[in-house]
């Protein structure tokens, strides 16, 4: 299939949704490219679903604009927007067979019966449920129902597909299978996907880009690895993956590297977004799996080093998880791949840890 030109581009400009006194969505601006898989990721109440509902047309923005392919759709009713949508609870019509469920959008568009039958069969093929057309939704498992919902949302060839926590109600195994399948569908169809989830792992696995939402605002937008490696604020660092937060005081600035005093030693950190003044109090963040005990680097230990005491040691199969205490009392988590060849630390051990400047971010 020719994917490149088929996806719609979506542009949100200063989008707001106010309820009484609270701002569910508070000034969201986002440009979603044609054919992109963009995920709105955030905790519940962050405004991600409300944003999606405004794109679908079920909520009216209090302010701002939504444009699809450059045309504002704010005044357009949902049934004219030609957007596919998949709901968390599937929202299959219980009184219709699978075939009639999937044929529903085609029927609304006046597609003749014979053509409809053919397209429905193709859609069922695409979601790997051929031969299920005659069943009723209640006769299907949750995963099968979600596939039918997916088929129904793409059978009329929309250029934009919205998904509201579509895998939320499924168990882990099934969820992982469907994640891969959705990636495959996205690649095959070439249409734009906007996906809402609170599951960061799901977002990291599936998305081209992720918009992390918090409190009605976009906290950061970027590729999964950008968000993981270069979180630009404390919320993103804490919400995506696990992070250590170290209080520090800025002592010097060299190009894009800041030198800060942290737990009695000098630590270098990247500051991609902020330019803090010398002497200001800041927070540095590092990932637990990017820290190592200094002797594990085999003499190539990177610049950032710190003395710690082991306060907790947990063997978790593929890795060991240590809780460490720095000189000023800050707790630090370190995750080390386990190996019978590595000496495991005991509670109370004194040790030195080391990690790279590239893995240290000022937030």
């Amino acid at each position: 299939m020719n994917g490149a030109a088929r996806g719609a581009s979506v542009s949100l400009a200063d989008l707001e949704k106010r309820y009484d006194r609270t701002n569910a969505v508070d000034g969201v601006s986002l440009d979603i490219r044609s054919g992109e898989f963009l995920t709105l990721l955030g905790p519940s109440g962050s405004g991600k679903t409300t944003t999606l509902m405004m794109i679908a047309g079920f909520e009216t923005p209090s302010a701002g604009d939504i444009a699809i392919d450059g045309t504002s759709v704010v005044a357009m009713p949902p049934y004219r927007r030609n957007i596919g949508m998949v709901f968390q609870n599937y929202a299959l019509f219980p009184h219709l067979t699978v075939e009639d469920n999937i044929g529903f959008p085609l029927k609304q568009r006046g597609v003749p019966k014979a053509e409809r039958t053919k397209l429905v069969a193709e859609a069922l093929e695409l979601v790997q449920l051929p031969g299920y057309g005659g069943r009723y939704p209640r006769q299907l498992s949750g995963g099968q129902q979600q596939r039918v919902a997916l088929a129904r949302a793409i059978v009329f060839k929309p250029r934009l597909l919205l998904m509201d926590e579509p895998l939320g109600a499924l168990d882990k195994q099934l969820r992982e299978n469907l994640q891969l399948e959705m990636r495959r569908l996205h690649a095959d169809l070439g249409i734009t996907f906007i996906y809402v989830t609170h599951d960061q792992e799901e977002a990291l696995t599936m998305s081209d880009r992720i918009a992390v939402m918090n409190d009605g605002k976009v906290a950061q937008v970027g590729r999964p690895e950008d968000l993981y490696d270069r979180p630009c604020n404390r919320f993103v660092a804490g919400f995506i993956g696990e992070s250590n937060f170290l209080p520090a005081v800025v002592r010097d600035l060299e190009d894009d590297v800041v030198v800060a005093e942290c737990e009695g030693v000098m630590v270098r950190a990247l500051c991609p977004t902020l330019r803090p003044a010398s002497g200001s109090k800041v927070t540095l963040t590092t990932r637990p799996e990017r820290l190592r005990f200094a002797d594990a680097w085999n003499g190539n230990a990177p610049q950032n080093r710190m003395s710690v005491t082991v306060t907790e040691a947990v063997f978790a199969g593929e890795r060991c998880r240590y809780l460490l205490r720095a000189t000023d009392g800050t707790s630090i988590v370190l995750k080390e791949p386990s190996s019978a060849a590595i000496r495991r630390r005991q509670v109370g051990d004194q040790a030195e840890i080391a990690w790279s400047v590239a893995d240290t971010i000022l937030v």
Partner: protein
Amino acid sequence: MTGLGMMGARILPATVVGLILLFLAFPILVVIVVSFSSATYLTFPPPAFGLKWYDAYFGSADWLRPTWLSIWVAAAVVVVATLLGTLAALGIARLPRAARVVVAGLVLSPLIVPGIVVAIGIYYAFARYGLVGSPVGLIIAHTCLAVPFVVTSVSASLAGIDPRLEQAALSLGATPRATFFQVTLPLIRPGVLVGALFAFITSFDELVVALFISGSGAVTLPRRMWDDLRFQIDPTIAAVSTLTIVLTVALMWGAHLLRKHAERQVTKQA
């Protein structure tokens, strides 16, 4: 516990429940038995059995005319009350919470206000417009009484529908009208049908309002039965009652089947 004791523990409640049911059903059983009596007066137990009083009923225009009138009035009430009640339920469901309570209360008020009060009110209001003694008057009055049943039944159906089904239909390109006819209406259909059955029974069984406004020109079956009891008593009344009971039980059974069907449809398989 011994086997005997266990049996006692089961038999005792079963006996009590059986006696209560018998107590409730006994008058109905007596009526049914008497209707097959061969005697010319009401007596129990009947001396012999026969279909004499059914013959009397089916052979008498005095009985058949009110029967047909009751059926026609009830049928008209079904149409009007089901339409109005369904629309009212749909409207009420879309009101803001505070307004919903007030409007639902108003619609249901005929159920709350004592029947005799409603009947007197209707009588005075209708007398002014010449609606006393006319089938149209009966249809209007019975519709007022039947609408609450339709609203209650349809509202219950509506409450069971996931609002996202309507959103899904809209997102798939169905206009609000198409969404209503292809999604909402099929899903509330059992509720609408149950409401319609209740509307029929409400009108068909109704006596108090009919006493006031049926006059001499629009005598319904319950009214005719009432008159019969007052002026003469013969077992025809038992035959009529039995037929009415059979019809009502059949309709209630139908309503029950519809409910079960609806529950089956809504129940999701895990």
